[in-house]
């Protein structure tokens, strides 16, 4: 079945400490045993066992938890893809999921979106949660005539003016009448984001949103996501294998390699031994990215006044 399965409803508890609880983990079998507080031992680490890192969370106390996944396990073709993964996203925070290729990032996102069922574990969503989704791959098909406006109105049946406002918001104003197949990769990315936004989502899920976008466009994209969080109070789940720009906008980073290796604020994760072991040289090159142009370009290439103000959150934009 590919029906979107809604996880159990009901308000997920906001108990953060539960995250530290692990269970013994055999190599193949899922280690899902609930949070009994036991040691989390990974059999592939021959030389040592270790605990999940307890790291301070930066989220404001009492923030509304939007979605909570507990003890997710997924086996694909005999291989354990996700092993006892917990994720929780609250309103107003940007959570970045980072990990090497094949680490299970996209699998986790698919489970959280209800696109496929987990083998074990539970996903609870806040009742009535509206999700906006920007998928990793978007193959356009010339067989379907589709204007940008019509495409966006598939996400929610809204007025023309709402579509126009959403396009302006993502910096894609003036594209409403264009054909979807005629857009560049960067334009398409923004249009898909606009479709997510007209749904007025509480949670935004973006899977590798910087794909096919140049470096400058990437920085702008993440700045935009930070701004949306600030202005609309969205919870954001961001997937990336990119280490640099992403982290500047993130409140929390979850480093995943089948299981959650480490998590916390970006700077903490970047120095975590598990993270360094996974990413090696790339990790040492980590730096919060500042882009230092004093103007921006809209999609037509015209310079426009800077719009982000580096206000709330820890986005450090110059």
């Amino acid at each position, binding site marked *: 079945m590919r029906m*979107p399965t809604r996880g159990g409803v009901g308000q997920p508890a906001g108990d953060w400490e539960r995250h530290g609880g692990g269970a013994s983990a055999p190599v193949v079998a899922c280690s899902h045993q609930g949070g009994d507080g036991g040691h989390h031992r990974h059999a592939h680490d021959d030389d040592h066992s270790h605990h999940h890192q307890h790291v301070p969370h930066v989220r404001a106390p009492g923030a509304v938890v939007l979605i909570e996944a507990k003890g997710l396990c997924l086996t694909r073709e005999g291989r354990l893809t996700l092993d006892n993964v917990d994720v929780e996203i609250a309103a107003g925070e940007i959570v970045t999921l980072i990990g090497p290729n094949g680490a299970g990032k996209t699998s986790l996102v698919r489970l959280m979106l209800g696109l496929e069922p987990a083998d074990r574990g539970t996903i609870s969503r806040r009742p009535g949660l509206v999700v906006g*989704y920007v*998928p990793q791959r978007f193959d356009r*098909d010339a067989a379907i005539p589709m204007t940008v406006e019509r495409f966006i109105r*598939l996400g929610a*049946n809204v007025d023309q003016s709402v579509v126009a406002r959403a396009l302006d918001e993502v910096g894609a104003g003036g594209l409403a009448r264009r054909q979807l197949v005629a857009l560049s990769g960067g334009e398409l990315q923004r249009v898909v984001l606009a479709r997510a936004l007209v749904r007025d989502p509480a949670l935004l899920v973006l899977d590798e949103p910087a794909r096919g976008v140049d470096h400058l466009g990437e920085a702008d994209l993440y700045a935009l996501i930070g701004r949306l969080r600030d202005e609309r109070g969205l919870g954001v789940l961001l997937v990336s294998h990119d280490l640099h720009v992403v982290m500047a906008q993130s409140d929390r980073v979850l480093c995943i390699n089948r299981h959650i290796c480490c998590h916390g604020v970006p700077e903490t994760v970047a120095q975590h031994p598990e993270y360094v072991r996974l990413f090696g040289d790339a990790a040492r090159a980590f730096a919060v990215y500042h882009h230092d142009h004093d103007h921006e370009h809209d999609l037509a290439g015209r310079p426009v006044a800077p719009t982000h103000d580096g206000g709330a959150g820890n986005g450090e934009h110059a």
Partner: protein
Amino acid sequence: MLEPFVLRALLAAVGVGLVAAPLGCLVVWRRMSYFGATIAHAGLLGVAMGLALEIDLTLGIIIVALAIGGVLFGLGRQRLVPTDTLLGILSHAALAAGIVAASKLAGQRLDLMGYLFGDILAVGNVDLLWVLIGGGLVLVTVGVWWRTFVAIAVHEELAAAEGFKVVRAEAVLVVLLALTIAIAMKIVGVLLIIAFLVMPAAAARPFAATPETMVAMAGLVGALAGAAGIAISSWADIPAGPAIVLVLSAASLSVIMWRALGRSGG
């Protein structure tokens, strides 16, 4: 002026043209033409079954078309054999079984050629009623599911994540396709039915900016070609079903060639 049987044929052709438009577009967008052909080929088996069980033939076609659609829908998830290979197997198995069953009944009451290529001038009042009521039902259902159909055609995963009922919509689409084919079969026949679905959509594509305008134009093309085909058929004394299909293919091929040449020239 028009004789009743020509008038009935005209109404049936225009009706089928209109009903086929949205489904034809969906078949093109979702690359289901082979899928549709497989259901159509099973139609002959439905006729044979209808005769054997002494039930309404259109009903027989609908039952068998739904059964084949269900099998395809169920097997669509298997990964062992590519889908088009599976369709190739089922499509020709159904056609062969249909011809065998029909030949057993031939000479009694079955006009094999009529079902393979259609016999629109023999459309009776009951057939016309099937087109109007069945076709109306199909169009209303398409209208209810339209947004879901389009969302899935554009990006299935995104549609599923946004809460569109993907699996249910696919099942509904298969049922609608089976119904449309059953209704149109009497008119254009088992072998030419897919033309009625695919050709108007192909002819309409270059002139449409949205899915909805493409459907409207496909409906226009289908209805006009139906009327033109029947006029040509009675004027030149050729079979009506193939005449309509020839008009449709002339329209769609000329549009495609015009666009292809325009692209390479400019």
